[in-house]
């Protein structure tokens, strides 16, 4: 793992034994994310979801690919663009939708909303809306694992915009210096809000930045779910073996606006369309069809299942209660109990 040219090519180019069952699982996971978010965009227009809503459409292969390589006891740290990570990590869609609404049955009791999804049981640590703010947290989670002798890995997702923040550099250095079990995953979608990578970085090769900290790093085609899974499996095995952190830069693209308020004047429509043609779901679907793994019936069944899950999630969110006002001040601090904080 040293090259920084993105590995591309067809999915089967990678050493990953891909059963039909697993291939369909990958497709299904990406489709669930896409369907969930498209419904979220509609619900935003209907004012059921409020605040900021950052969609992951176009980037699904990254979260889905990496999540395959994690065990249930590994940890995940993500950003405000984390619906996909939460779904791929196994957080239930209905409780996620309730969180989007701000309802009491949401994964964060409704307190967080779209940007702050948490699930301690699944070791899903948010949901951070301060750019690069989750990276030191991930280093600390990994430090705790190391100090307590657990062979767990922390996967930390962030955008390429985060690479300009001090927290990114300080954290990479710490993780490398202390050889901590962190997999850094940079989702390079080329824009930080309206700022293109070339306009914000003197060195636009993010994987090279990580390499400067002596972290083995690679740049990947972020639209290729198989390539990402394969690279993540390899990297995580090395991290778990105690070989220190690894860094994956996944080159991808955000199909929609930065959030719901964004006229997208900073990029050409043609550029967006060109990337959509390379979209992770479209491409994988075509490949599966060509490989004889996906027929029309199966595709229809998948869509119908997802539609049912989504409808149930919306119903759940609709019927969930608002947290009572008397609870406003709860969960600000805990109670002090001896021996456990």
């Amino acid at each position: 793992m040293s090259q920084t040219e993105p590995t591309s090519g067809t999915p089967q180019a990678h050493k990953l034994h891909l059963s039909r069952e697993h291939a369909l699982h990958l497709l299904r996971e990406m489709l669930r994310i896409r369907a969930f978010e498209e419904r979220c965009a509609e619900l935003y227009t209907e004012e059921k979801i409020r605040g900021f809503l950052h969609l992951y459409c176009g980037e699904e292969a990254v979260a889905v690919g990496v999540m395959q390589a994690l065990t249930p006891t590994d940890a995940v740290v993500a950003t405000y663009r984390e619906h996909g990570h939460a779904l791929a990590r196994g957080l239930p869609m209905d409780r996620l939708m309730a969180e989007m609404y701000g309802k009491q049955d949401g994964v964060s009791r409704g307190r967080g909303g779209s940007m702050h999804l948490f699930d301690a049981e699944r070791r899903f640590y948010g949901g951070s809306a301060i750019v690069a703010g989750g990276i030191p947290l991930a280093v600390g989670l990994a430090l705790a694992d190391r100090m307590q002798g657990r062979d767990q890995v922390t996967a930390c997702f962030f955008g390429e915009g985060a690479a300009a923040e001090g927290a990114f550099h300080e954290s990479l250095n710490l993780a490398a210096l202390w050889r901590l079990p962190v997999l850094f995953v940079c989702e390079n979608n080329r824009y930080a809000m309206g700022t293109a990578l070339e306009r914000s970085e003197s060195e636009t090769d993010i994987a090279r930045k990580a390499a400067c900290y002596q972290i083995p790093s690679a740049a990947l085609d972020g639209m290729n779910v198989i390539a990402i899974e394969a690279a993540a499996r390899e990297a995580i095995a090395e991290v778990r073996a105690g070989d220190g952190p690894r860094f994956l830069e996944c080159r991808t693209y955000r199909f929609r606006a930065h959030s719901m308020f964004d006229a997208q004047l900073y990029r050409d429509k043609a550029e967006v369309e060109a990337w959509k043609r390379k979209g992770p779901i479209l491409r994988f679907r075509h490949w599966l069809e060509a490989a004889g793994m996906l027929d029309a019936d199966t595709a229809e069944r998948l869509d119908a299942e997802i539609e049912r899950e989504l409808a149930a999630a919306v119903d759940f969110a609709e019927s969930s209660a608002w947290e009572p006002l008397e609870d406003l001040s709860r969960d600000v601090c805990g109670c002090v109990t001896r021996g456990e904080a």
Partner: protein
Amino acid sequence: MSGEAIQTTYREAVRAAIREALDRDERVFLMGEDVGRYGGCYAVTKGLYDDYGPERIRDTPLSECGFTGAGIGAAVGGMRPIVEIMTVNFSLLALDQILNNAATLRHMSGGQLKVPVVIRMATGAGKQLAAQHSHSLEAWYAHVPGLKVAAPATLEDARGMLWTALEDPDPVILFEHVMLYNRTGELAADADAVPLTGAAVRRDGTDVSLITYGGCLFKTLEAAEQLAADDIAAEVIDLRSLRPLDDATIMASVAKTHRAVIIDEGWRSGSLAAEVSARIMEQAFWELDAPVGRVCSAEVPIPYPRHLEHAALPQVPAIVAAAKATLGR
């Protein structure tokens, strides 16, 4: 004033102030995240990039500590930078530079250096942006000697404070409450610079002084209107400057009304409201007919759901109730 007025918004008033500063002084430049091509996260700087170009409307990477610190350095080096930070929560990444450099260089250097930087940032809640985008940390900055801190609430102040801030030899922090940007109103066509310091009496009254600033001003004025319906004449004071505080205006009002309530979107503990209350106690204790009241934000990170966010913030009914309480009603 020529008497001619234009219809404008708070956002446009800030933009007009930035334009004027760029036109008047070639040392002035603006920098921050997405201020240029994108037009600013709250669209305040829309159009400026096209008119002034990338040298003077500088898009920065996501590096709050770096570019705020660079603004401070450029000010020491003779420029007149306007640094825009998207929102006060993100300014914490730059707090080190603001506190340990901007606020101290003059003093540490025995008066040799000056830091005429202006740092603008959005503040406050009301848009359901939850606990990392919604706080009111004005008091943290107002705590620091060496800084000047102001909160323009009206169109006149949004239009007029920036130039005065740029002329000031010391670092000035300007807080723009997110719920004010869309406020519309009339502004004199020839509106000009206004003083940075000094509180303003926004409504005269004799029964109780309602003291506030920034995003709470209009809630407080509405409360005063409701109180008037109950024959209570509330005086509304807009602090405008949070450091230094204008003690004289506050005490003159309290001497007249003998009652005070402070309305502050910051958390109650260690708030600006606490500071103003203490000063009233120190300087006007014998004038008081009732304990000083406070309406502040609940001591909770701001939650996402609308009803909880609303309940966490100072609202008109709570202001009315607190004002009535000082009158035993």
